[in-house]
Each structure stands twice: as structure tokens, then as C-alpha cells.
């Protein structure tokens, strides 16, 4: 008798516990919650993130509410339990490069430091929608680099072998296989630059860029991170050399650690901290979208005889881009010569697109580093952490960049995956120059 009462008591005690557990475990976005909210007039959805006023101090401030800043805050909270964090964004969330890129995700690099880092990113991408409980529309439709000369195909074979050596998928494709995969492509011997083969990474693909920003923002917010928009950093608070906080358009905010993830604005923000020169140049990169077409191409395609890359969005528009404009710029717009060049590259591959209309074009400011590889490091000042140098490949790095940066901030030392991405590698002869272009940022 006494035993059974104990049992009932135990049940009564554990019931609220399991209910609490269920509330935590039940995903905020699910088929069930969709149905429930549909039946109750969609009145119960919470905003994806709060709009808090800044507190007087935090454990960590992340400057920059783009993909990298938001993923840094998310992984600080999720992986390291650091939730007293503010993300400061000068405009609205995702108004910078995370909303301006051409959405390609790949890990087809040559040099081991890059390959390992971007492959880690790829693995995070593969589980990202599940991890964030947010559909980032990650689509592993493959990325195909076209080769136009036998020497280029040899070079791709070398890169493919280097990738496979590190466990990344890569395969060489023949012209016939490419013609079956992308029927619209001009694979004839009379093409302006005949196609002799290509390097395919099947696990590469695209993701919905805005959803990545929103998903990370919501994930960080739900773990207690304050995302503060319209809050521009105007200076740094210092105690001697040590950075102890920032001044902003919404007042002074103190923090034990201040992390900078501002991509194209790196030069401007570092100057506020008294650092006049950086191994970075800011350049403008344009991107374009055509009117919506029926399904036309189901992979990410790159041209080997110039700089051109294209994919098709789920809405049907062809999303494509080419080279930088090629001169220092902080203007988020480019000029016409590059528009002309990109269109002519597109037509060299797809003569049939000549009458398709371009719907929109825009520009983003890229933080071009001196070797084409990023910087994720402690310093350069005490209390400061730096994440920059993404050139125009930052979108695919978003998960791993935040993951590694959060590790670096939490533990005051880099993870093995970003240990090579130091700021002083340029002065120590340890550059990571995947394309072998040298210290000419506009060529990376």
C-alpha cells in the first residue's frame, strides 16, 4: 500500500517535469504548430526575434548582424553556453552581404586549410535546417566548374584529387555527361570557348540566404542573445590597450569581449579602434537576377574562361554574377563595364539566353584579403576578436565561420580548423593563396 502511494506520488511529481521537457523539446516550427496556428487564426506566433534595448554591459558583443555575426552569437550560446551576448547591427538585420550574395555553397578548395574549413561548413549546412528548426532551403544540387582547355581539366583533376584526399566528394565529368546534365549549354566544338570537361562537387548547392540570417537570428534570440538593430558602432571604449566596450548610436555598451564581424566595413571599424592599415581592401561585387523561367538548370555552374557563375532560384530567376568591379569601393553599387562582361560570358555558355531580360542587379562590399583566405583570430587588441577577409566567398562559410569564431571567443584560442587563418600570416610567410594570385586583392 505504502509502496503504491509512493508510486502515485512519483508520477504526480514527474508529470510537470515531463511536460516542461516536452515544451522545450517541441519544435516552435513544425507541421503540428503550423496546423494549430492555422486553426487559431495565426495569432499566437511570436516574432522571430525580439527588439530589445541594449543593456549596459554584456559578456560578449558581436559587431555586425550579418550571417557571420549571427551564427557566431548562435554558436556562442549553443556550443559554449555564453548567452549574455549582444549582436549590434548598424542597419536592419541581414541588410549587408548575407542578403546580397548569389547563395552558392561549396567546399571545392585546393589547399588543406581551406578544404578542411569549408568542408566543416558543408557538414554544418547539411544539418542546418534541422539544427535551427528553420527551413534554410539548402539544396545540394551540385556545383560544376567547366574546363575549356586540357590544361585546365588537368588542373581541375589535381584539385579534385586534393579534395578527395581530404574526404570531400569530387568527380570529373566528360563533355557528354555535362551535356546531359545541362542541356541548354553550348557544348559544340564551335562554341566561343569549347567545353572539354568539368569538375563536379555533388554535395555543393545553394541555400536561401535571407532564411540563413533569420534562422540564426531566431536561434540566437531564443537562447537569450540580444539582437540590436539600427545600432551603429561609433567608437571603442578602452582601458589602456584593452577594448572594454563600444560607443554606439544607442549609447555606451560595455563587454568583456568585443568581436568584429563586419566584412566589407572591416577597415572602417578597425580605424575606430586606432588601427589604420589592414591586409584588406574593400571592393564592390555585383550580382544579377533574370525574370523567372521554367526549370532551366538544376546545378550551380561556373565558367572557366572568365569569371561567371549561375544557378536558378526556386522562384525561377537565374541568379548569376562575375568579377569584382576591380577598384576599392564602399558603394553598394557597381558600374556598367562589368555588367557588359558578365552578360557576354553568360551568352558564351548559353546563346539561348540572349533574349531573357535581366530583372535586378545590385552590389555588395567585399573584404578582399591579400591571399584570398579569411581571418578568424583573437586580437589584434586585447579584448578584441576579428573575423574578416571573406573576399566574395563568405556566404558558404557562414556556419563554420560562426562556429570557429565562437570557439575562438569562448576559449581565447583558435580551433584547429581556423588556426591557420591568422592576421599575422602575411608577415610570417604563411599565406593561404588558393589561386596563387599574390597580394593583389582584386584578383582573388
Amino acid at each position, binding site marked *: 500500500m505504502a509502496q503504491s502511494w509512493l508510486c502515485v506520488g512519483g508520477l504526480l511529481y514527474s508529470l510537470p517535469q515531463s511536460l516542461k521537457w516536452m515544451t522545450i523539446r517541441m519544435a516552435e516550427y513544425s507541421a503540428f504548430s503550423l496546423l494549430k496556428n492555422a486553426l487559431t487564426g495565426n495569432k499566437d506566433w511570436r516574432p522571430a526575434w525580439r527588439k530589445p534595448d541594449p543593456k549596459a554591459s554584456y559578456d560578449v558583443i558581436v559587431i555586425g548582424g550579418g550571417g557571420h555575426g549571427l551564427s557566431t552569437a548562435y554558436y556562442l550560446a549553443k556550443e559554449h553556453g555564453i548567452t549574455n551576448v549582444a549582436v549590434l547591427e548598424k542597419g536592419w538585420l541581414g541588410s549587408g552581404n548575407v542578403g546580397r550574395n548569389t547563395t552558392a555553397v561549396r567546399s571545392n578548395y585546393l589547399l588543406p586549410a581551406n578544404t578542411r574549413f569549408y568542408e566543416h561548413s558543408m557538414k554544418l549546412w547539411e544539418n542546418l535546417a534541422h539544427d535551427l528548426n528553420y527551413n534554410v532551403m539548402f539544396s545540394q544540387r551540385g556545383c560544376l566548374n567547366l574546363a575549356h582547355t586540357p590544361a585546365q581539366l588537368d588542373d581541375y583533376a589535381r584539385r579534385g584529387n586534393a579534395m578527395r584526399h581530404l574526404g570531400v566528394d569530387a568527380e570529373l565529368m566528360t563533355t557528354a555527361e555535362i551535356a546531359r546534365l545541362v542541356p541548354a549549354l553550348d557544348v559544340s566544338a564551335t562554341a566561343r570557348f569549347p567545353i572539354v570537361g568539368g569538375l563536379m562537387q555533388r554535395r555543393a548547392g545553394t541555400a536561401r540566404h535571407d532564411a540563413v540570417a533569420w534562422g540564426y537570428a531566431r536561434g540566437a534570440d531564443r537562447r537569450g542573445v540580444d539582437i540590436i538593430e539600427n545600432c551603429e558602432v561609433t567608437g571603442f571604449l578602452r582601458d589602456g590597450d584593452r577594448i572594454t566596450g563600444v560607443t554606439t548610436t544607442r549609447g555606451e555598451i560595455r563587454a568583456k569581449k568585443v568581436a568584429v564581424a563586419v566584412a566589407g566595413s572591416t*577597415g572602417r571599424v578597425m580605424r575606430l579602434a586606432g588601427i589604420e*592599415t589592414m591586409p584588406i*581592401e*574593400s571592393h564592390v561585387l555585383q550580382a544579377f537576377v533574370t525574370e523567372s523561367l521554367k526549370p532551366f538548370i538544376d546545378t550551380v555552374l561556373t565558367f572557366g574562361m572568365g569569371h561567371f557563375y549561375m544557378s536558378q532560384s526556386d522562384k525561377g530567376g537565374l541568379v548569376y554574377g562575375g568579377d569584382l568591379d576591380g577598384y576599392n569601393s564602399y558603394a553598394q553599387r557597381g*558600374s556598367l*563595364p562589368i555588367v557588359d562582361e558578365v552578360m557576354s560570358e553568360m551568352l558564351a555558355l548559353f546563346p539561348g539566353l540572349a533574349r531573357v531580360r535581366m530583372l535586378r542587379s545590385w552590389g555588395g562590399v567585399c573584404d578582399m584579403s*591579400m591571399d584570398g583566405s579569411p581571418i578568424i583570430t583573437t586580437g589584434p587588441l586585447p579584448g578584441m576578436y576579428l573575423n574578416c577577409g571573406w573576399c566574395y566567398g563568405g556566404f558558404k562559410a557562414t556556419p563554420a565561420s560562426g562556429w570557429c569564431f565562437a570557439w575562438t571567443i569562448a576559449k581565447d584560442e583558435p580551433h584547429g580548423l581556423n588556426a591557420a587563418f591568422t592576421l599575422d600570416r602575411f608577415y610570417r610567410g604563411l599565406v593561404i593563396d588558393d589561386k596563387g594570385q599574390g597580394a593583389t586583392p*582584386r584578383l582573388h
Partner: protein
Amino acid sequence: MLITCPYCGPRDVIEFTYQGDGNRQRPQPASQNLDAWNAYVYDRLNPAGDHNEIWQHSGGCRAHLRVVRNTLTHEISSTAFARGDHNSVARHRAEDKP
């Protein structure tokens, strides 16, 4: 974007090749001052605003030009021959003995 070449007049930007930051100072060729070399090769001012830069009129008279251009608006406020300072002895750091 138009650049006004002192020889050729206003020409489209496609005639020109960008040679980057014009503030960099190359050490004397025999210099073993590594800090000075590192700064020359890797460090950039990268200002948001007026930028002192070198362009070559490679599709025209081939002159090297010193251009002051605003990186926020792309507006050019001055162009002049880089001759006399670009890649010349005068441009080497005077204090930097080999």
C-alpha cells in the same frame, strides 16, 4: 565611371587598369627592413572616402596616373601623372637605408 587622362581627356574606365593604393611606399630594393617590405606588400589604408590611387591608361597612352577618387561615391576629384613619384627613387623611403 570616366577618368580624365591628362594626355587624352575624359575616357571610360574600361581603358584603364587599376594598380591600387597609391600611398604605399616601396623600400629601397636592397633594403632588408622586413617591416617596411611587409607594410608595402600587405598593408592598405582602405579608406571610406577619398582614396589616393594609381591607374594606368593601359588602353590609351599607357601613362601611369595618380587619381584621388571617393570610394563611397566613385567621384574623382583629381588626376595627375604619377611620374616623378610612382616607382621612382624619390618614392623610396628616404630614411630606409639598405
